[in-house]
């Protein structure tokens, strides 16, 4: 097809066939009349319309707190704040997070970050705010500012900084991390740890490297970009 178009188009401008070979530009020949695949708008819309509707539905359900969402984030540090955190089944131990080899966030850390792993089986948080620094701008997730608080199941956070006013019930300090039984996870052998039946933290502020596989219910979800983090 390309060769025939070449012949006809060049024949239009230069009548002599010898010039076609002399110009020697078969690679320049455009696939002018070549038939190529293309996206038909109406056909794409058949799928785009219901997909958009479902996406909108998911967002509304999440914002109403009817649908739980999971987080398994990181690579970059992000900040979580909440005015109140109430939890059942709390455990905490030290750990070392390994970044993916060659990760651009490695910096001078050698790809390893010393973290405090906090595990809470069931947690409710009021006025949750989570921000990720994307370089220049922050992605802000806010939720739980209305009547219903944010709830999370099997929340595991790897934090480098944790601050707040904490109160524990039935706390055991100094366990071996591999013997933890009050929460849903255990640490490595020979590591200092603590656990408690319940935990209450006011004015919570965490710098996290990972929040793992927690089902979050986020009533009143707001996703936005902002200059300032939480």
């Amino acid at each position, binding site marked *: 097809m390309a060769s025939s178009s070449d012949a006809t188009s*060049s024949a239009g*401008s*230069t009548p*002599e066939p010898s*010039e*076609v070979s*002399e*110009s020697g*530009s078969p690679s*320049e020949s*455009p*696939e*002018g*009349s*070549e*038939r*190529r*695949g*293309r*996206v*038909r708008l*109406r*056909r*794409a*819309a*058949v*799928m*785009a319309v219901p*997909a*958009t509707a*479902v*996406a909108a539905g*998911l*967002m509304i359900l*999440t914002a109403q707190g009817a*649908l*739980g*969402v*999971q*987080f*398994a*984030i*990181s*690579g970059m540090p992000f900040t979580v704040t909440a005015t109140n955190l109430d939890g059942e089944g709390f455990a905490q131990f030290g750990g070392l*997070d*390994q*970044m*993916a080899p060659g990760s651009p966030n490695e910096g001078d850390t050698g790809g390893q970050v010393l973290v405090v792993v906090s595990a809470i089986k069931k947690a409710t948080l009021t006025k949750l705010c989570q921000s*990720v620094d994307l370089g220049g701008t922050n992605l802000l*997730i806010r939720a739980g500012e209305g009547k219903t608080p944010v709830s999370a199941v*099997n929340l*595991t956070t790897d934090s480098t900084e944790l601050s707040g006013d904490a109160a524990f019930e039935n706390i055991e300090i100094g366990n071996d991390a591999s013997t933890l039984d009050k929460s*849903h*996870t255990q640490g490595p052998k020979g590591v200092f740890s603590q656990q408690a039946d319940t935990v209450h933290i006011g004015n919570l502020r965490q710098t996290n*490297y*990972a929040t*793992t*596989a927690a*089902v979050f219910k986020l009533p009143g979800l707001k*996703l936005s970009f902002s200059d300032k983090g939480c």
Partner: protein
Amino acid sequence: MVAFRRWRAARPFWGGLLLALGGAEILVTEKASLKVVMHIGMQGLAGYLLPTLMLILGLLILFNPAQRLFYSILGALLSLGTWVTSNLGGFFIGLVLGVVGSCLAFGWLPDQEPRRARSWRRRRPEPVPHP
């Protein structure tokens, strides 16, 4: 370049590429260690499974375009599913890429009539005049 353009013309290139990129973007936003994921079980695993499948489906659309309808429908469903399982669909970006990519792949048809009046065709250099 011409070979690449011809290769591209025979498949829903942007659709497959966007779907694969969406899956990759969501995977990048996740970094839960595999040990924890296994501990949580299926629910935690789904967070990785869905974007991985998106990536694979995107590549399959590129390299096996004959089955694009099935791939794109599955791709759109998985993209929507990542909202629940994987960081709100990679903070929404990966979800949008995946859905747009799937729709483009779904709407793509091979062997269409060429568009008229494309600028790069009109700007074609004249053949060298005979000395």
